[in-house]
Each structure stands twice: as structure tokens, then as C-alpha cells.
């Protein structure tokens, strides 16, 4: 927020807002926000991290603010990445040019658990595999942004973006009159249009879109039902859909209705027991045959996960150069792959200064933050890395930016990251905003809700 001792311009107006809010009022407002979150039932763990599904994720009322100019750069960078990731997926399930060209090692792709042989040769409608790309971004300086990871399957958390805004507008309508803040409520309309735009070619008229959820016990069920509601489409479970002939149908009170686009919030492994896990009770038998024959679209397309593997992540800048002929606008965090001998040597040498992650892990588990870890923790992790080097990557500890956050004593800086949601269909769209996660513990760099993180409203100021 601060640049030297002065407040960075985007936050200038908020200074007065804070000054005019005595502590009592702040506590009152905080309690009100929590009550609102509870009432709407948005208590799930962000990004399916597990933990108590009924636990409320702390909401910090101090918004995170981007100036229009800052956002313009982010937007360009994120869209560029989403385009490259999709080009990559079409390529590796097709001719594999990037592998033939020696830019990405074939082993990393074809022997990857997330590579689906079943969809080799398939080009989904409009050439899109990943329709909703969640790009996790951190800031390390006024003009310096890094991408931490890409999420190409079914990134969650967008309901926090929508509800945080809703609650802020309800509690502080004045703020939204005084500041010109770009709206985010167009997200659901854009999502619906994106999904409709990738309906199969053989779809006769207006496409029927559904959201496929694993069910109400899923930690992100609230988000599934919110999106279905906002888009005006059906929320279905596997048992509500069936395959007959060459199409997928939905059971309705007026009889079966053909389904054209399925926005699934269910992993590949569970969507069709005939193709993937036979024991899955959540999926639709025969779905993959219909999909592969072009009778239905699945978003994200099966097999998309191979693009967001943490080892594949290292090659995204190369993808941008290879497919788009452009230089990456957003940088990757420098990453050492422990599977490489040279990298491994460096990592083991510098372990106390590094952040180490499991290649397939998520949610801040199975992760070492060197500078914050005890000597024993570092040594325990060292043994794990030596045991299975290919399973780990390491990154430098970044000087994450911090933004003003309400704490007990008043306002203090806390570290944040950002996940915007890029929509890819016939067009590429990015709603100005996203989910800001904040590490509420002083000095902490881990923003995961399972590790004491909270969420904030994210503002993009209009020009």
C-alpha cells in the first residue's frame, strides 16, 4: 500500500474511510460481515483444501485495490497465458509439435498421470480445453508480478469474488459511490456465454448448459449452486444425466432434455465409469463416448489437467513464445526441478532459504517454507526430497507484497496473493477482479485458508 512513507495512489481514498471508522464501528461491521457470510452459507474451504466444511473463512473488510493501469498489464498477461495453455493442450493431444521441437520433454507430458490417452486426437469445440483458467499471482514490487501456478481444471473460489463484493456493497454503499470501481457481477453472464459458445457443432438450437456437481457434501457445493443460480442453468448430479443413443440427456419433469454443454466440477477420474474409474458412482456411464464422438462438450475438457502440473508450469513461458510468438508479459517464479541433478544439488544446498512444493500437491500441504521452518522440519523435508526428487520443485522465497488489513490493533500490512478467473470460449474474457487471499498471521507468507488465510474484496479502479 505504501510507497516510501506515502500511500500508493490507488489506496489514497481509503485512508479517509479508515480514519472515519472508530474501532467500535469496525467491530460491529466485522460481525455483520461474518453474519452475512454465514447466512448465505459460504463457509467452504477455498480451493477444496479440506478441513472443516462448516468453518467460516475470515473476511477482511479492507479491500485490495488495483489501479486501472496495473490491471491492464495483468489482464494482458493472464489472457496471454490462457491462450498459450489452450494451444499447448490442443497440440499435445494432437501432433505434439512443441515436443518434437524439443521445447518440452516428452516424458513430462506423455507419462504424466494427467495425460489422458482417451482424448488423444480430440480437438474440442473452438479449440478450447481449459475454459476457466485460474491464474495464481503474487506481487513483489510496484511493477513486478509473478505467476505462482495455473489452474486449468475447475478452479474454485470465484464465489468469494462475487460474494465479497456483494457484502462490501451492502455494508459500505458510500465507498462504491465515492470510488469508481469496476463491477464483477458480469462474471456469471460471461461464464454462461463462454459455455454456450463451445456447444458442439451438431447442437441444433440454443445450447442447454448444466453444472455437474459431485453433490451437496462437496466443499464447493455452495459455489456450484450459486453459479447455476446466477446463470439460470440446471445444477445436476451424475444420476440426473444419462446417455441414450449418441447424446446426453437430463431427466426433467417434462421428460428428457438433451444436454449440450456440461460445466463439470468433478475430476476426470469420476466422470464416466466406462472410461475412467469403474467404481465412480458420481459420473455418467457412456459420457466419454458421446464426448469423443462430438455429441456433448465438457468444460474443462477431460485431459486439461496436464497443463497445470507444477512441473509443466516451468514451461509455460516457452509455450507463450512457441505458440504465440510473444514474450511472456507475466513472469514465472524461478523454479528448480528436483528431478534434475543440477537443480537438486542447488536445492539441497540452499534448502533453508527456499520454498519447496510437491509437484502434484495443492492447498499449502506437503510444503516447506524454508525461512519459516525449524531446523528439524528442514531436515525432515530434505530426507523426503532425496527419497523422491522428481516429486518436488523449489522456488525462492518471494518478498510478497502486503496490503493494509484490519487487525486487532488497527490496520497493518499482511501478505496477499490473487486469483483472477479467465474465461476462454469463442472469446477470452477477464472480469476486473478476482479472489484475494490474505495471510492473516503477521509475517506469514502462506495464504491458504487451511493455514490461517482469509479473503478480501478485490477492486479494480476505473480510469
Amino acid at each position, binding site marked *: 500500500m505504501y510507497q516510501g512513507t506515502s500511500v500508493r495512489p490507488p489506496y489514497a481514498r481509503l485512508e479517509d474511510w479508515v480514519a472515519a471508522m472508530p474501532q467500535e464501528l469496525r467491530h460491529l461491521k466485522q460481525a455483520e460481515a461474518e453474519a452475512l457470510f454465514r447466512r448465505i452459507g459460504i463457509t467452504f474451504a477455498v480451493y477444496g483444501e479440506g478441513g472443516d466444511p462448516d468453518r467460516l473463512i475470515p473476511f477482511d473488510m479492507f479491500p485490495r485495490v488495483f489501479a486501472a493501469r496495473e490491471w491492464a498489464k495483468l489482464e494482458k498477461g493472464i489472457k496471454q497465458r490462457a491462450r498459450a495453455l489452450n494451444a499447448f493442450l490442443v497440440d499435445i493431444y494432437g501432433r505434439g509439435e512443441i515436443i518434437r521441437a524439443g521445447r518440452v520433454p516428452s*516424458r513430462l507430458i506423455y*507419462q504424466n498421470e494427467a495425460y489422458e490417452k482417451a482424448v488423444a486426437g480430440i480437438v474440442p469445440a473452438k479449440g478450447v480445453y481449459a475454459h476457466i483458467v485460474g491464474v495464481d499471482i503474487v506481487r513483489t514490487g510496484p511493477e513486478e508480478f509473478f505467476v505462482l501456478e495455473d489452474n486449468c481444471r475447475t478452479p474454485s473460489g470465484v464465489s468469494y469474488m462475487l460474494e465479497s463484493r456483494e457484502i462490501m456493497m451492502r455494508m459500505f454503499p458510500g465507498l462504491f459511490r465515492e470510488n469508481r470501481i469496476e463491477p464483477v457481477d458480469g462474471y456469471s453472464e460471461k461464464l454462461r456465454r463462454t459455455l454456450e459458445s463451445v456447444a458442439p457443432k451438431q447442437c441444433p438450437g440454443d445450447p442447454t448448459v448444466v453444472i455437474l456437481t459431485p453433490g451437496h457434501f462437496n466443499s464447493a457445493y455452495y459455489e456450484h449452486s450459486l453459479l447455476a443460480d446466477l446463470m439460470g442453468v440446471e445444477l445436476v448430479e451424475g444420476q440426473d444425466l444419462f*446417455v441414450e443413443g449418441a447424446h446426453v440427456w437430463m431427466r426433467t419433469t417434462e421428460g428428457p432434455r438433451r444436454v449440450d454443454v456440461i460445466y463439470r466440477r468433478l475430476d476426470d477420474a469420476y466422470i464416466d465409469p466406462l472410461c475412467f474409474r469403474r467404481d465412480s458412482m458420481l459420473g455418467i456411464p457412456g459420457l466419454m463416448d458421446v464426448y469423443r464422438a462430438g455429441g456433448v462438450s465438457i468444460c474443462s475438457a477431460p485431459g486439461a489437467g496436464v497443463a497445470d502440473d507444477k512441473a509443466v508450469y516451468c514451461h509455460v513461458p516457452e509455450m507463450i513464445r512457441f505458440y504465440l510468438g510473444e514474450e511472456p508479459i507475466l513472469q514465472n517464479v524461478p523454479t528448480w526441478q528436483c528431478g534434475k541433478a543440477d537443480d537438486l544439488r542447488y536445492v539441497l544446498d540452499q534448502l533453508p532459504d527456499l520454498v519447496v512444493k510437491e509437484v502434484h500437491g495443492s492447498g499449502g500441504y506437503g510444503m516447506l517454507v524454508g525461512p519459516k521452518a525449524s531446523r528439524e522440519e528442514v531436515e525432515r523435508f530434505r530426507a523426503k526430497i532425496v527419497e523422491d526428487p522428481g516429486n518436488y520443485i523449489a522456488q525462492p522465497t518471494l518478498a510478497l507484497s502486503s496490503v493494509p488489513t484490519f487487525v486487532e490493533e488497527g490496520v497493518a500490512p499482511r501478505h496477499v496473493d490473487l486469483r483472477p478467473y479467465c474465461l476462454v470460449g469463442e472469446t477470452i474474457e477477464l472480469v476486473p477482479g478476482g479472489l484475494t487471499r490474505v495471510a492473516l498471521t503477521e509475517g506469514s507468507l502462506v495464504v491458504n485458508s487451511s493455514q490461517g488465510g482469509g479473503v478480501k474484496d478485490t477492486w479494480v479502479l476505473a480510469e
Partner: protein
Amino acid sequence: MRLKVDHVTRYVYDQPARSVVQSHRLCPSVFAGQKLVEWDVTVSGGQKGASFRDAAGDLVQGWTVAGPVSEVTVRVQGVVETDDLSGVLRGHRETVPPEAYLRATVPTRADTALHALAQPVEAEDTLALDHALSKAVADAIAYQPGVTHAHTTAAEALSLGVGVCQDHAHALIAVARVRGLPGRYVSGYLFSDASGAAHEAAHAWAEIYIAGLGWVGFDPANRCCPDARYIRLGSGFDAQDAAPIRGVARGGGQEDLDVTLAILDDAQTPTQRQNQ
């Protein structure tokens, strides 16, 4: 050879199923060693569903049967002309990179015993190595039906020392991977002549990828490479992935399965008829 196939699979449900969905790979592969003369698949009460050729070259055909249904009969009838190509899958159109088959699945994962079986095998080139690996598998796992089952892994079959064609194929895929060679499971049919030398008409074997030559079939169960007696249907990582029929019945309770299969030498059939 000119082989005639009559293959009937009957599913009986002890309670009527609400619906049945199947995915078939029941059409012989198209390559230099096989030519379809006629081929027909029927499903009692079934409606044809999605159909496409996948990147591994297999023709996939979906079927659905609306319930209530207590019995479904899948009948495959046809005639195929085959040539002996010494197991080489020449002229087969497919685009899955061979390297994708280096991935282990549960039944084809190599344990220490499979590693120990694969490692000492020596040969002057890859083709000879593959023959030697196939022989090593045949020597280590004796053909004996009734001991292993559908979910037996290669490692389990090796430790039992007995198995059927499915176990041989899984084991060969595992040992090939240990030696860095992509291997895959092939399902098909096998003609048995009067001598009874060959067994298991609904058959399975393995293919190993050899640079320069392509995919080559090896049948440890019969200690040979597929020849004109073999009809190739489809391939996959393992038996489940390559299954000619996959199906799910909603409701239906217990499922009973009954298979009859006849593979005849079509060229001889008229003579036999005259004799009768």
C-alpha cells in the same frame, strides 16, 4: 486365413435393470494383416450410440438399452481375412505416441520380482530382447486356468507361477517397461485348430513398440507372435483398458455372464458341410 467368428455374450440380471450402457471395441483392427469381409454386431433391444475411431486406431461403438431389461445379448458375427505378418502391426493408423504406454497401471506395475525377471535377459537387439522377454514370462508363469481372476496383477500372477493369457500379457507389458520399452495389452480372438495346440478363443496378448519396426505382437501364452490365426480387436494399457465390451447396468442387482465363441476356418467350412 479366412476366419469366421460367432461370438455371443449374454448378460442376465436377477432384477430388471433400469438401463444398460455399453462401450464396444468389437470391430477388428484395420491393418495389413487383417481385412474385414463382413462384420456385424447386434445388441438385443439396443440403440446404437456414439461411434468414432480413437487415436489408438480402435473403432469404438456405444450402445444403450432402455429398461426395464433383464437380459442383454451381444452377438458378433463376421468373416475376416488374415495374413501372417509375424506379429508386426503394419499399416495400422494410430496417433497415440508410443511413449504414452510407458505408464504403469495397477495390473502392469513391476514389483521387485518382475524387475528381477526382466533385468538379466540379454539379447543383441530390441526384437531379440522382446522375444526373450516373452519367453521369460512364459517360463515363469505356467498356463493354468482357474487360479487367477479378472483383477489379478502381473506381480501376483508371477508370484503364483500360474495364470492365463491376461496374466501373461500383463507380465510382458511390465517387464518390457522395466527395459524401457512401451508395451500394451491387445484383446482379440484366436483360432484353435483340431490339434488343440492353441487355447483361449477369446484371447489376449501384448504388443511392444520397437523403433523402426513399430508395434509388434507377442503371445507368451502360446510362445509365438500373432499370425494368421489371430484376430486383433483393440488395445489399451491393460485388460480393463482394452476390454472389447465395457458396460454398466443401472439397477439390475446381480449380473450373470454367459459367453459362447466359435472361430472357424471359413475356407474349410463348405467341405465340412459336404461331409455331413
